[in-house]
């Protein structure tokens, strides 16, 4: 079946190559790229389908998206024409070339869709002209009908890819991260701390499921066996992409079986907070030593040979921003300092990036509900065996399985990601500006 489609594709693409469509000088390379691109599309399709047909159709038909697309294609055509002119400076030429290259993936797919639609038209007209006449050839009709289905399906796939190509990509997606879990406060009982520990275990499970590195920096027990707060570094492929939407307040509802709260046999509510910070390999955060205040046990008292201590905790305060980082993971004070500095860098980077992204927020996004830290993003209802994500409305059962951090969590994360990307695209097209990448 796959091979069959491939062959069909080849015939279409060959026509693409031999026809004089598109700009001069781009023809062959376009065709070639298109072929590769479409091959990848096919391979991608046999793997997981990210968008269901309805969604893609919706997005594609969306007026703003269409308008945005037209704008992009106009720009593409414009650039192609201008580049053919001889009277351009090197700098202008280079600049335009860069822009063109960025538009190329979108243009390719758009081209493919246009061509596919034309093919479909041809097939359909052939079909209609032969049906019901004396010349009707049963076999021919059958083949034509098959080809019609093939092309239609291909068009759907291409539309998916067009959407993908239009999406603004997050440059931080492939980063490693610093993940923190912090227990909420309760007026009594330990439901928050227990929940925080379970969340920690869940993410540990997820890291293992995804084959990521899970390095604990800080693990502060609460009394009675819960977890007060912890910090880990998770490294691997596309960690930030998967976990970036986990940041926020998670709420738990259960009738506690153990611990102080269990006496009441009522449904208790608690919260905990997850913080996700990207740790890009190249951190260009420069920290002036003068801006730091470092506190250690030695800071009080004379220090030096006159004191022996096993307290090697280090606290680093970045004075200009007030960011504070603590580490007591190692018995060596120096190692704790190094770790704390690493965490500080990550935090400073995050707040640097955070300010930028905040500036790009639009009213629409706020309407849809990018939750601030204090709004809960997900509720884990143990008594009703249900997890609900409040951004997408996604509901899943078997909470015990979910808390193992395996496929169930992965599926939820995928749905949130899709939702996020969809929102991002709509926001983008509504701004009416083709993004200068």
């Amino acid at each position: 079946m796959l091979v069959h489609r491939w062959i069909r594709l080849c015939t279409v693409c060959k026509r693409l190559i031999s026809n004089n469509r598109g700009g001069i000088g781009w023809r062959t390379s376009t065709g070639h790229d298109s072929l590769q691109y479409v091959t990848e599309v096919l391979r991608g399709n046999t793997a997981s389908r990210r968008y269901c047909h309805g969604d893609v159709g919706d997005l594609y038909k969306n007026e703003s998206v269409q308008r945005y697309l037209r704008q992009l294609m106009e720009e593409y055509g414009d650039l192609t024409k201008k580049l053919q002119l001889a009277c351009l400076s090197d700098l202008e030429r280079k600049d335009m070339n860069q822009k063109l290259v960025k538009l190329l993936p979108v243009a390719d797919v758009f081209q493919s869709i246009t061509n596919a639609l034309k093919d479909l038209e041809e097939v359909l007209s052939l079909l209609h002209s032969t049906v019901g006449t004396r010349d009707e050839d049963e076999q021919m009709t059958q083949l034509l009908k098959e080809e019609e289905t093939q092309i239609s399906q291909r068009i759907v796939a291409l539309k998916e890819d067009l959407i993908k190509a239009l999406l603004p990509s997050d440059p931080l997606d492939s980063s490693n991260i610093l993940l923190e879990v912090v227990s909420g406060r309760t007026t009594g009982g330990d439901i928050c701390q227990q929940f925080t520990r379970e969340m920690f275990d869940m993410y540990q499970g997820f890291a293992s499921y995804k084959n990521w590195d899970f390095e604990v920096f800080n693990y502060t027990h609460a009394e009675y066996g819960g977890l007060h707060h912890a910090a880990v570094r998770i490294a691997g492929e596309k960690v930030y992409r998967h976990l970036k939407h986990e940041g926020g307040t998670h709420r738990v509802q259960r009738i506690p079986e153990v611990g102080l709260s269990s006496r009441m046999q009522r449904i208790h509510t608690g919260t905990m907070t997850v913080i996700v910070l990207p740790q890009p390999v190249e951190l260009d955060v420069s920290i002036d030593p003068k801006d730091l205040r470092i506190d250690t046990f030695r800071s009080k008292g004379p220090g030096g040979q006159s004191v022996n201590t096993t307290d090697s905790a280090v606290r680093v305060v970045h004075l200009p921003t007030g960011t504070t980082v603590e580490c007591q993971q190692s018995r060596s004070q120096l190692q704790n300092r190094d770790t704390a500095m690493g965490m500080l860098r990550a935090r400073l980077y995050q707040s640097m990036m955070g300010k930028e992204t905040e500036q790009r927020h639009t009213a629409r996004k706020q309407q849809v509900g990018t939750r601030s830290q204090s709004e809960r993003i997900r509720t884990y209802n143990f008594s009703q065996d249900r997890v609900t994500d409040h951004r997408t409305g996604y509901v899943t059962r078997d909470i015990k399985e979910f808390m193992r951090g395996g496929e169930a969590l992965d599926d939820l994360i995928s749905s949130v990601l899709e939702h996020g990307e969809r929102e991002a695209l709509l926001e983008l097209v509504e701004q009416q500006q083709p993004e200068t990448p």
Partner: protein
Amino acid sequence: MALWKRHFEESGVTEPDHSSQYIIAHLLGAKTIESLNQEKLTEFLSHDKAQQLWDLCTRRLSRMPVQYVIGEWDFRDLTLKMRPPVFIPRPETEELVELVLADLQLRQETGVRAEAQHICLEVGCGSGAISLSLLKSLPRLRAIALDQSQDAVDLTRENALSLGLQDRLQIHHIDVIKGADTVVSLYDSISTLVSNPPYLFLEDMTSLEPEILRFEDHAALDGGKDGLTVIRQILTLAPKLLSNHGRVYLEVDPRHPPVIQQWVEEHVEELLYVETRHDITDRPRFCILQKGK
């Protein structure tokens, strides 16, 4: 853990929570309590382990430093064995090593002796922390460690063997004051002299905590009336030991740097005072000097 913490508190043992945590973690085979997972912590201890715990904690009750109780501690990226009365490395000394490493790397890049081998001499090696740390980080370095205490020499040798660094380290039982002639006759082209010498003022010795007074070697702490007895000796010998442009790195008391600078200018012609560096608490802690005409 809570039980022993209370016992420590009641007996006036310093840092009761850290003490109980590190002892129990060690017993369970880990370095820190945090690195143990939930299950291990809630396991019941076997009879043997419970007995061991009792022994260790009792020792701590006598104000024995935790490092001696569990017999080991971490220094930078190394784990070293600890044994009374050999001096327990302090966190400041970790920074001394960092300083030396950074400097050596710089000198290697820019110096004439870039290709030549560096030899480092440590006075007062104690458990071997400084020398072994340097050897671990610089694969081409060779080191010589001296101490006037046989216990220290033995412990340094043990640690060197554990870490597999014994091939590049020579250890000698020598007193730089009493055996000055021996030292000078043995070495003369050292590129780096490093030391965390005893630098406490005599009057400060009396106000030390029981942990230090009762268990650590006083000779590793007492620097005489002004804390400079051993330091002066080291600086006097330095020009004879060092090759030209060789450097001296010392950890000292915060009151020392200006005193040392003046003294060197007056008494040691061939030694230049380069700079004073501060420790993590921003106290003047390290002196760098260089041999030069």
